[in-house]
């Protein structure tokens, strides 16, 4: 990228010099300027090329390769050049069972149903995050947004689950939610009936157990982000509203919550992207469950593309996942980010 630009620009001043010879400008100055230009482009190339090279080789190229693999039937063992080109068959298989009536029925139960099941789990986690985590984190942040003894300790400790790896969180809760584990015993001791066969094995409870663990791990981050936003809201504004007789809830609803809008939108974006890509924790928890009862799109992709060596199909799923992330990111940039930036421009 840069090297191309460098060479292109390098030629520019040469062309200028021949026509500049007609002008009275001193050749010395022209030569110096040309040398300056050349040095500048060399420096730019030197500074940016390691990053651009790494990025092109290990990020862009693999993503393009994934798009290419997705059009082939390939097991990853034999050479890719011997793989069979099948067009968009892998996508068709994932989305509706493929176009061949002879195999459609079998493919539907082998590929399409688990694919949509996994997609549904991602969607459920997204919706539940917005409907449960967001209000809960916001409410806790609003309550904690004042001086009280132990404030800084609370802040640091509720951040802890975020820096613990998903692997550790997964293993830890797997032990706690074990059919003989402490969570099961606790639920029994208060007279309720834990799910038959264990929390994770239950078709009904499996995904909600995973959502509970996700919430445990990421709620603290949301609270801390909101608290950081709230610390920027003018204290005088709130005091003035209180003196005018506004209730606590009115102050939160009319001042604090609208003013941390940008922070809330950042969290929504982080949460969306994280929910789409959720992998580590779910993989640690029995790779999405024995029946895939809480598999996500990422674990589904690994199950087929890596464990079952159906690399073409796994790549097609990866590309679908990429397109969904892309849509979310573009939507975020076009709507939210532009609005927030426009507002800050206005204020300046």
């Amino acid at each position: 990228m840069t090297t191309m630009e460098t060479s292109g620009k390098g030629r520019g001043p040469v062309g200028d010099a021949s026509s500049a010879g007609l002008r009275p400008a001193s050749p010395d100055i022209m030569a110096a300027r040309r040398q300056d230009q050349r040095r500048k482009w060399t420096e730019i190339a030197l500074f940016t090329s390691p990053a651009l090279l790494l990025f092109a080789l290990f990020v862009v190229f693999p993503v393009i390769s994934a798009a290419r693999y997705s059009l082939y039937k390939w097991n990853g063992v034999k050479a890719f050049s011997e793989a069979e080109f099948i067009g968009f068959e892998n996508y068709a298989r994932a989305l509706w069972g493929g176009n061949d009536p002879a195999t459609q029925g079998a493919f539907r139960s082998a590929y399409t149903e688990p694919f949509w099941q996994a997609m549904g789990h991602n969607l459920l986690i997204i919706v539940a995050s917005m409907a449960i985590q967001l209000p809960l984190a916001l409410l806790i942040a609003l309550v904690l947004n004042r001086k009280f003894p132990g404030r800084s300790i609370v802040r640091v400790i509720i951040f802890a689950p975020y820096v613990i790896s998903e692997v550790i969180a997964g293993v830890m809760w797997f032990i706690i939610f074990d059919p003989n584990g402490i969570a099961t015993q606790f639920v029994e001791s208060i007279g309720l009936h834990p799910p038959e066969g264990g929390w994770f094995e239950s078709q009904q409870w499996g995904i909600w157990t995973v959502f509970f663990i996700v919430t445990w791990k990421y709620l603290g981050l949301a609270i801390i982000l909101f608290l950081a936003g709230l610390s920027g809201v003018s204290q005088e504004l709130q005091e003035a509203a209180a003196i005018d007789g506004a209730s606590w809830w009115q102050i939160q609803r009319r001042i604090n919550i609208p003013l941390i809008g940008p922070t809330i939108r950042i969290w929504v974006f982080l949460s969306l992207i994280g929910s789409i890509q959720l992998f580590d924790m779910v993989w640690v928890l029995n790779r999405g469950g024995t029946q895939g009862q809480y598999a996500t799109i990422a674990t589904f992709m690994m199950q087929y593309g890596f464990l079952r060596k159906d690399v073409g199909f796994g790549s097609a799923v990866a590309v679908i996942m990429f397109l969904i992330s892309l849509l979310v990111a573009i939507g975020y940039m076009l709507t939210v980010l532009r609005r927030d930036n426009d507002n800050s421009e206005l204020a300046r």
Partner: protein
Amino acid sequence: MTATLNEAPPVTPEGDAPPRVASPRRGRRSDGGILLAIFVGLVAIALTLGPILYLIVGGFRTQENLSTNPTGLPDPWAWQNYVDILTEGTFWQQAFNSLLVALGTTVGVVLFGTMAAYPLARYRFAGRELVYLIFVTGLMFPLTVAVLPLYFMIRNLGLTGSLWGLIVPQIAFALPVTVIIMRPFLRAIPKELEEAAFVDGVTRVGFFWKIVLPLARPAMVTVGVLAFIGSWNAYLLPLLLLTGDASGMTLPLGITQFQGQHSSATTLIMAYTSLSMIPALIFFLMLERRIVDGLTGAVKG
């Protein structure tokens, strides 16, 4: 968070407010608020630390104690699990691998990321915004999408099982965030400083090494911490690449491998998991502020 003040305040400006009088009603309410905040804080701490402590304490139980009395304290306190793990070499080897990979990734990300951000922040050249845009779009390229081709690529290079095969792609994937955080920071370095340096005969490259790098240290720490945590906790890429012997694994992969091997010895797994969690947890919590700054900076751009 200054941007938060930009929306029109929905209440009357404070200038219109009557002179401040200590209202007894308000005083009582905020006392209640403090009690509520303390209560919510205590509940949050209990829910956060409860499972973590249960895990750590569980490492001190015997298997029999865990099944008969999981809620009480261990009786007796059994040190054997922790001693076994710490005297056997695999745990240390994995911790060392994790540290090596995280340090390698961090150094690479901070160095290359700052280098790339420098011309993007302080040079004027055709195509600058395009290069920046390439990095911004990089944020949307998740590792999960690239991981299968990456695996075949590294396998063809003969680097599976090597920590380098892990470090280099991790650097590449952490670069976009780094460039995006570093650019506004480098841009904020005063122009006068640069001009003064040039008058003194310092080249742009010299300016980068002698002035920019020391000045950018806070931002470099922020991106460095994010890169370190990302690498330390990474699971997906090691899962594909470090398939060989357990002593060649990083800790997250080592934990799941250990779990698979000792599936009936739950308390031993608890000890193993605790040991790999505690030092990093303490270290990361000390850097809480930096992590939050980095996360908000990355998304706002």
